[in-house]
């Protein structure tokens, strides 16, 4: 998986639904939009909107499997936040 732009510290500054989606992927692994919608209680439109934003931020990426896209989280290879940075993210 190529390096993305997400540090774990970024999670604290994300909107709730974006954070929950990222945490779900980090915990359970790659998933389709339909799976994410079902697991997180989101509508298809909501989940696609969130995925679009997270893709633009390079916090997630996808692979095409059959007719579906399967999404996964893309952590940055090397962290950039200091401890003080993390505390300022609240």
């Amino acid at each position, binding site marked *: *998986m190529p*390096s*993305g732009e997400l*540090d*774990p*510290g970024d*999670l*604290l500054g994300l909107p709730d639904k974006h*954070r*929950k989606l990222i*945490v779900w992927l*980090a*915990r359970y*692994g790659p998933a389709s939009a339909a799976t994410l919608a079902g697991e997180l209680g989101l509508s298809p439109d909501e989940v696609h909107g969130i995925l679009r934003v997270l893709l633009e931020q390079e916090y997630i990426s996808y692979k095409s499997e059959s007719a579906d896209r399967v999404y996964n*989280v*893309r*952590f*940055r*290879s*090397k*962290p950039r*936040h200091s*401890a003080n940075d*993390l*505390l300022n993210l*609240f």
Partner: protein
Amino acid sequence: MAHIMSVHSFRGGTGKSNTTANLAALLAQQGKRVGVVDTDIASPGIHVLLGLEETAVQHTLNDYLWGLCSIGDAAHDVTEHLSVSVSGQVLLIPSSIKAGEIARVLREGYDVGLLNDGFQSLIEELVLDVLLIDTHPGLNEETLLSIAISDALIIVMRPDQQDFQGTGVTVEVARKLDVPNLLLVVNKAPITLDFDELKLRVENTYNCTVAAVLPHSDEMMTLASAGVFAMHYPDHPITQKLKRALDMVLA
């Protein structure tokens, strides 16, 4: 689906690794297959509690993060070192105790995504019932990751003003990350304190359940990390409290 539990403290010296080792052993006594990952790369220590000698270490978490081995290659079966026979298993992924390797990690950092992939791979490869993550104290990228992916977070603190303040930060982070089961363990409490009052005060301060108040123990200090307390003292009140705490963690 395996249960992921992280054991964390805002400050060092609270008894986090001791708590992790004891929980791992108690889970193995219940017949569980338990993976323990020492993510305290800067100051590893749980391998001492679990009886893994440096000469017996084949690969470490460091080797995995540097792409030198698979995560499974770094798993060491420490079950026989528990000093009592258990029906389950404890598999430890230690961090390196070599000064040069610790310095390298501190200098270069490591790939957090790879660490997360490693957690998931461990669960699958080793067919774990429980993955216990012994975290580095304090707030950093790695501890945030562990907290975020955990089904249960156990925050260990002492009844000390510095710990009180720092624990508040960790509780806030855990709430923001929606950790499903958040529990506190108050450790090393002087026996002169009213434990019921202390428990209530901590619970009211953080609006969070205290799974156990563990007293300062001369037996624990005398054992001095030479083994897992619950295995050496199965009938001790501390062991009974840890068992009840474990029930709450698994609930």
